[in-house]
């Protein structure tokens, strides 16, 4: 009976992934996955609920309620932090289980190594994710890479220490746990904010891998299957994010990107514009493309974006959104923020789909994005972002950049787009800038 339930559960998980392939069917995917999860968890009890004391049930109910509460209260701009936190919880849970299994019994050799692996990955994911969340909240600045380099250099002798120093043997489990904990902290601490999409996706994958290996320890096929699915999903997103920055995963994890020589020199002054001029310019346009970036999320400008979109559409102006894969702090971050204010996902375009259209676009509005529209990625071989796929907004007839100052983006380099002949700067916070443009429309 239990086997049948588990079979149904596995099939439901795979169907859920299939349904996730289209925005119109994705909400059903969630229902399928929930059902699959309920069956899988139920089967673990093996129809015998008497082995569990009140402490067990209280923990489940309280943490379940807490989960509902968090998920209802979180704002869409905070999704990267929430996913980061959940990555940490998943990894932490698997790590804790592996630790308990390792300390309570003598495992067969193959299981022993899987358990050590699960514990190390789980604990690493836990501490790394906590650091990632702190960074996303702006509570932690970049740490100098030297500390990480020193730690990495000493890691092999540190790992071998229990093997040579006999007195440490009793401690070695806790010792490995501590090493993984420190490794997670140091590894993520050196990576900069705009690399967070890669880090979050990578930790997501690790939390799946930790769960998968926990499945090996307790001999649960469903746990292995589900863990493998999460691991695969995280790896795909990690590689997509890396490709979108033209960097390798190893290079991202090394950290320290963009912190070096900041070159923000311009050989001429940008053309500054006013909300009134932008409104006039837009009212003469036939096609407008909006490029949102992290600045839109920081300024909470989504509602203003929607209002401007409505205003333009009322004037029969075509409005599209061009979303770079690494815009924001996690994969798909911008899409969710736009969907939240009811912008049709049919109007959201990926880099591949929209790049050929820029040359025939009348006005592009760059909203809090910087490095992902920097033409140096195409032209300057010495640039740190050379070869990164960018949105070719500089090819459009006119470009409006809404930005608070001329300060560089994450890569720490000047963006020649800002002084291009077809570009004008509207110096403002994303939300305030858009609201002023909308107000000016009413006067036009």
């Amino acid at each position, binding site marked *: 009976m239990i086997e049948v339930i588990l079979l149904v559960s596995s099939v439901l998980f795979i169907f859920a992934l299939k349904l996730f*392939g289209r925005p119109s069917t994705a909400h059903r995917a969630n229902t399928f996955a929930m059902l699959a999860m309920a069956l899988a968890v139920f089967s673990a009890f093996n129809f015998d609920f008497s082995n569990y004391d009140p402490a067990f049930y209280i923990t489940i109910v309280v943490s379940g309620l807490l989960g509902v509460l968090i998920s209802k209260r979180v704002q869409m701009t905070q999704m990267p932090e929430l996913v980061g936190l959940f990555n940490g919880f998943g990894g932490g849970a698997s790590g804790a289980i592996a630790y308990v299994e390792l300390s309570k019994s003598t495992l067969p050799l193959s299981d022993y190594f899987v358990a050590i692996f699960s514990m190390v990955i789980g604990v690493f994911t836990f501490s790394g994710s906590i650091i990632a969340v702190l960074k996303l909240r702006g509570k932690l600045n970049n740490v100098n890479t030297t500390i990480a380099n020193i730690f990495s250099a000493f890691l092999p002798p540190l790992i071998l220490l229990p093997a040579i120093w006999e007195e440490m043997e009793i401690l070695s489990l806790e010792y490995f746990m501590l090493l993984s904990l420190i490794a997670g902290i140091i590894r993520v601490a050196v990576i900069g904010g705009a690399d967070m999409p890669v880090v979050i996706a990578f930790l997501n994958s690790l939390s799946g891998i930790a769960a998968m290996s926990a499945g090996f320890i307790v001999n649960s096929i469903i746990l292995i299957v589900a863990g493998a699915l999460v691991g695969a999903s995280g790896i795909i997103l990690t590689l997509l994010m890396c490709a979108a920055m033209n960097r390798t995963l190893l290079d991202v994890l090394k950290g320290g990107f963009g912190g070096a020589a900041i070159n923000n020199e311009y050989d001429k002054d940008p053309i500054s514009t006013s909300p009134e001029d932008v409104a006039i310019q837009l009212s003469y346009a036939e096609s407008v493309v909006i490029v949102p970036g992290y600045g839109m999320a920081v300024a909470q400008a989504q509602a203003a974006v929607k209002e401007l979109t409505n205003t333009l559409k009322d004037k029969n102006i075509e409005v599209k959104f061009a979303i770079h894969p690494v815009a924001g702090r*996690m994969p798909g971050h911008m899409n969710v923020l736009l*969907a939240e204010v009811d912008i049709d996902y049919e109007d959201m375009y990926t880099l591949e789909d929209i790049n050929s259209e820029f040359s025939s676009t009348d006005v592009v509005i760059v909203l809090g994005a910087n490095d992902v529209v920097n033409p140096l990625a195409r032209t300057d071989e010495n640039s740190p972002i050379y070869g990164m796929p960018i949105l070719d907004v500089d090819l459009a007839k006119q470009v409006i950049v809404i930005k608070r100052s001329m300060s560089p983006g994450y890569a720490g380099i000047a963006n020649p787009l800002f002084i291009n002949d077809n570009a004008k700067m509207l110096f403002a916070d994303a939300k305030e800038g858009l609201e002023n443009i909308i107000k000016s429309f009413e006067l036009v």
Partner: protein
Amino acid sequence: MEATFLLTLLITFLASFIGYELISKIPQTLHTPLMSGSNAISGITLIAAILIYPEVGESQILKIIVLIAIAFATLNIVGGFSVTGRILEMFKKND
């Protein structure tokens, strides 16, 4: 190497392969709910916690550690599915 261990490895490989094929087709628009959804699924490690909980024996420390694992995993499952549902609702009403 037991035969069952190899069979399990085969299943792992097949699951990863199916996962890779299906997830590669998910559009960029849905990458955030994909991540929060997979957060929820990684909470499936709750199963392992349920399986080992009755076996921890007398040690109070180990029992507390398993309870922490249960709390983390449950939070992931419930919170993950709930927030994913919230996000996907926003995409649904666009139809």
